[in-house]
């Protein structure tokens, strides 16, 4: 069900939410968190809502969407409430602010009365994010702030901002996209021979924040020299990791962006699907952890330890 409340106020929205609950029991009260999505009005808002609805099947939540309209327009708040089939397992409130209501401060002011009592608040900027999310009025309300440098207009600049402005509680989907890679590498080291890693090379697209981040993570965790190189592979994003050990290297290669090969000395090549993860999948993972991700913070700091390689790494599939 979708209820439109044009030219409205947040107290009217709150009243309507209670009314809907009493009228049809359409909304359960078992929401575990409030997810605040900050975006510009338009198609990207719908995509973000869809991702949130998918994630809500795992994490029932209230989703507040701040869709910023034109700043030139007259001050107006158009609200929309979606519940039931139109909202996955969540309840969605879309707040379209125009004019002065499209500013950051006004956005936070609209969010506060609609936050669920006691439940954690997660802020998510699906595209462009403030330079320092924790300083943003909405970012300050949240204990977890999720950004996505790759979806920003300028990923390199956005990622630089993530590095310089990081505080505990921030995380970026460039990190979430690495989880499968990291898990495969960690599992490879779980198995014998248990030898120390003596060096690592990480290769990927020239502009690939995830690749940098993986290199940073390895540098911090392994305490060895890690090189970040470009790659000849056309698959995009990360393409290979090589961990050098005395008995030979462990290699995880993904030339086509879909299927990876795990290569270890004295063992047959093993193939596994390692596609790039979609945003809904990443968001669901993010919502699983509401405490600060210290490992991510360390990996960001570790990028400074990584040396840059110039010659591209050739992947032999």
């Amino acid at each position: 069900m979708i209820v439109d409340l044009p030219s409205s106020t947040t107290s009217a929205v709150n009243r309507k939410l209670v009314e809907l609950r009493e009228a049809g029991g359409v909304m359960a009260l078992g929401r575990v968190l409030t997810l605040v999505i900050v975006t510009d009005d338009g198609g990207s808002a719908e995509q973000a809502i869809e991702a949130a609805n998918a994630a809500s099947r795992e994490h029932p939540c209230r989703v507040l969407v701040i869709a910023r309209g034109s700043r030139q327009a007259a001050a107006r708040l158009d609200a929309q409430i979606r519940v039931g089939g139109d909202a996955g397992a969540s309840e969605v409130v879309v707040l379209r602010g125009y004019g002065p209501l499209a500013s950051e401060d006004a956005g936070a002011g609209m969010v506060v009365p609609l936050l669920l009592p006691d439940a954690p608040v997660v802020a998510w900027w699906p595209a462009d994010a403030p330079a320092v999310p924790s300083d943003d009025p909405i970012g300050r309300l949240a204990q977890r702030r999720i950004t996505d440098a790759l979806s920003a207009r300028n990923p390199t600049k956005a990622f630089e901002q993530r590095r310089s402005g990081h505080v505990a509680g921030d995380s970026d989907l460039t990190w979430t996209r690495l989880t499968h890679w990291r898990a495969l590498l960690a599992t490879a080291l779980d198995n014998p021979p248990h030898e120390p890693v003596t060096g690592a090379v990480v290769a990927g697209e020239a502009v690939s924040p995830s690749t940098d981040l993986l290199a940073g993570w390895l540098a911090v965790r392994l305490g060895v020299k890690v090189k970040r190189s470009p790659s000849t592979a056309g698959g995009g994003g990360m393409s290979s990791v090589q961990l050098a050990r005395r008995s030979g290297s462990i290699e995880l290669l993904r030339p086509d962006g879909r299927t990876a090969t795990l290569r270890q000395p004295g063992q047959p090549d093993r193939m596994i699907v390692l596609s790039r993860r979609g945003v809904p999948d990443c968001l669901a993972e993010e919502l699983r952890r509401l405490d600060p991700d210290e490992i991510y913070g360390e990996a960001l700091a570790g990028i400074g330890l990584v040396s840059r390689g110039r010659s591209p790494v050739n992947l032999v599939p």
Partner: protein
Amino acid sequence: MTPMPTGRTAGQLADGWTNPLRDPRDKRLPRIAGPCGLVIFGVTGDLSRKKLMPAIYDLANRGLLPPGFALVGFARRDWAAEDFGDVVLKAVREHARTPFRQEVWDKLAEGFRFVQGSFDDDHAFDQLARTLHDLDRVRGTGGNHAFYLSIPPSAFPVVCKQLARSGLSAQDGDQWRRVVIEKPFGHDLGSAIELNEIVNEVFPEDSVFRIDHYLGKETVQNVLALRFANQLFEPIWNSHYVDHVQITMAEDIGLGGRAGYYDGIGAARDVIQNHLLQLLAFTAMEEPVSFSSDELRAEKIKVLNATRLVGPLEETTARGQYTGGWQGGEKVVGLKEEEGYDPESRTETFAAITVEVDTRRWAGVPFYLRTGKRLGRRVTEIAVIFKRAPHLPFDATMTEELGQNALVVRVQPDEGVTMRFGSKVPGSQMEVRDVTMDFGYGTAFTEASPEAYERLILDVLLGEPSLFPVNQEVERSWQILDPVLEAWAAREDGPDPYPAGSWGPDSANRMLARTGRTWRRP
């Protein structure tokens, strides 16, 4: 003060090697099984098609299986390798929880093998051994293999002997061999000990994984979280406040088509001995020192050792057998008319027992366990019923409709927790009535929470034993139940008939009424 770490820390392995890429703070990193393969005996069976194969695909789809994972089917059916692949594909398409992705399937299917043969066929097991060696070479399974015996227990001895004879059960150095077995773990204490001996002769106890799929369920694991992570419940989780506990596992389906397994076994052996006593252990156990599997099992064994039947058994137990009738708009037949059953069958399809846990915490609190087929609806729940408030400053008329407070853990379906307590009815009069407060994992979210079999198969491959009962638990459970089975067998009358779709025979109600209690309608 920082507590001293007990046992291994995250990332630390048995030989003292610490994996530098693992960190206990890194909670995103899932544990992926190391290189390994799974062999399923009885791969043509229902369980294999409906649960095991889909679970394996779901694990692969979630990226939790190792690259190069191998699945070997063993059955008498004269299949080519492709036929086996088709059967798995069909099972996955029909029953998998996660969406079908061709690329995941393709990579998984490369590791499928099928070995045809019967259990007494030496040649077939030699062929199986060659297949596994070949997989080690081609797929890199590293000599690590789990054998899933999805077969009747009567076939265990011969399969175990064959595995030993063909050298498949021998583990050396870094390689592991594990065996997975399903209930029934025997039909009484004697047969359970015998079965354990047969299996332990070939596989050491730490390589034996007994599946009780209830323990793989989120809600059961949540009982521990509910009790030990909260301050709210544990203080009242004892005989001072708890009046009694009811543990129910009800099914609305009948037993048609399962005559071969069920006739002569009955509900008590099928469900109470394993599932319900395990649920009781989780509900009643003391807080483990840590969540390591050893500590957890130690507490479960302690509480099972303290559990004893309440007599006299003819009054404190009940058994029933469903009769034909209309159930939920459908005409159904009674057990005696079901195909394959003895028309004089004395097999019980409903069983209820009363036990007590002889500890300071639970002294005097009865635990009522019941299970049955063709009951009102399919439900499994643990209901902790509290005593009435010692003093009510209300007139009797005000609290007429106030029942006992209850905390109900809904194990399945509609997983969640319900609390029941009194609340004032709105109006000018003081009137108190029961209301419920509900926490639901919610039916809509179950797609995100893994199936029990996914969790359990992954734990087998990881060698993580917490959720699997050990032989001591199995044997103790039989010890608890055996006197009931003997008492029932000794009686001349058979189980009490109850109409399909009801909540069991009258004797079940009488068994609670003797102490002034009633069954909850779940």
